[in-house]
């Protein structure tokens, strides 16, 4: 059944498929960061995989495995509407400078999920056209879904923004609008 995807991946990528598993019936393949996008492209275009449906992309913080070279696991789930099977591709990224190729050229839907992944975990995606925070605001400090994020940490209070939002930079850049932003300190009510 769905094992076909794992077999095809191993056949095509050989040693670059680091491990495969099917725990609880979910087929998982871990690939090397260098061939991450290639593997995704293969899963989508190979006629026997045909995973044209983008399901999900996110990450797991595996800080407990003791290996700083494999702290973050980024995964993408893809599904084939025609063949009714799905696969989860994973890539392991190091603690300092976690970066991997973007999957937007493969599934355009990866755009917001990669932004969210950057927002929550600080994983960067090479070639992403618009890697801004998406659920949190720009002044937010840290990446909250990392296990070492201090949950009690206070965040800066953004009382008032003058000028336009920096978030709009790619959007307004061609309009000659003032892009430098200054903060007014929160007004003391007394």
């Amino acid at each position: 059944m769905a094992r076909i995807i794992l077999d095809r991946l191993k056949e095509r990528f050989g040693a670059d498929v680091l491990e495969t598993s099917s725990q609880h019936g979910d087929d998982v393949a871990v690939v090397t960061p260098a061939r991450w996008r290639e593997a995704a492209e293969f899963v989508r275009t190979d006629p026997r995989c045909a995973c044209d449906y983008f399901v999900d992309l996110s990450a797991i913080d595996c800080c407990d495995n003791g290996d700083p070279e494999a702290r973050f696991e980024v995964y993408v789930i893809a599904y084939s509407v025609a063949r009714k099977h799905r696969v989860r591709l994973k890539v392991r990224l190091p603690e300092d400078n976690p970066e991997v190729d973007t999957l937007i050229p493969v599934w355009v839907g990866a755009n917001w999920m990669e932004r969210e992944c950057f927002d929550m975990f600080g994983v960067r995606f090479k070639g992403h056209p618009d890697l801004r925070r998406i659920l949190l605001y720009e002044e937010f400090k840290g990446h909250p879904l990392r296990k070492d994020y201090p949950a009690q940490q206070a965040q800066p209070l953004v009382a008032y923004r003058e000028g336009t939002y920096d978030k709009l930079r790619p959007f307004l850049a061609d309009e000659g609008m003032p892009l430098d932003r200054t903060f007014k300190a929160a007004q003391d009510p007394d």
Partner: protein
Amino acid sequence: MEPIDLEYDDAELELPSEPMSLNMGPSHPAMHGTIRMVLKLDGETVKSTDIQPGYLHRAFEKMAERGTWAQVFPYTDRLNYCSPLLNNVGYALAVEKLLGITVPRMGQLLRVVHGELSRMADHLTCNGAMAMELGAFTPFLWYLKAREWIWECHETQTGARMTHSYFRIGGTALPATDQFVARARKTVQRVLEVVAEGESLLLRNRIFLDRTQGIGVLSRETALAYGVSGPMLRGSGVDYDVRKDKPYLTYGEVDFDVPIGEDGDTFDRFMVRSEELRQSARIIEQTLDLMEKVDPRSPDAKVSVDDPRVMLPPKSEVYGTIEGTINHFKLIMEGVDVPAGEAYAYTEGGNGELGFFVVSRGGGTPWRVRVRSPCFYSLQSAKGLIEGGMLADIVPIFGSVNMIGGECDR
């Protein structure tokens, strides 16, 4: 008297046409108070847009990592608050997948009935709100009246109108009450009457048709690449419904159709939801029949697994025996001991594929709970639907996306 028909230079009458930036939302009624769209307009045509979600972000995934497995249920209620029980079911199935347990038959049937009732409430809200945003206020009020009947039906069973937290890891909080089957049957019939009544106001209405047909066309390929799911994907003509493609619970035993659209426009999405209301009613009717066939003395009639490692003991044991007290204490304070591993469980939620990706490192607290919230994906695709269209068309398009703030921003 001088003649008033002065000669005008045509060029002077041209309106200024430089692009204009407009903020729509977050405090705009059509944006449901949680989405901001930055639009660049040329006249009334939308040139480009930047959709900014996140105004209702409540750190669902972070909070889930800080309590026990069972403490996540109240948060899931608040994801898609139009169909909370579907979220309960989705999360319960994910944890049960990790634990490797299957709920007894009566518990599964109860999950299907409540889930489908919730789906009806969800679709009624979406279709009603969409009609209201186009100026048709009456169908909205009728649909909300019907939604209230569904919620009353839930209330007799769960004790709450909206945030039920009714399902548990391993089953259901309580068995069905004696009146539940009859009440559910009656509710479904009354709701269907209201649906037909509401449609009779809309489907021959020139304004409604003109503002929805051919507006916001989403092609099949784009929908797939964006990960759009549920009624929106089926409106674009893709025959994908989790209940059919990978039947979970007892969906494999009941007979129902999956409606799909042809053009992928706003009208098709409306019609798919309308038809799904009827299909949900069919599922409920058949599932209620199956419930009545279950022998009350057989093990099938249980609603929860009989496993003290997962289910709380009955209150009489908690207060009457030391074993019950300790069992209760351990489950509440330490949580269900879920073996290490990871699993992705997906169900058909109100808006499409609702997936929970749960990671356990062993012990009573989740390591990671990721929710694949369907309307986050639908909303992303809305950018392509809005650009190039008219400003006023944003309202019906956005209505048909059915963005639920709690689910989108988590």
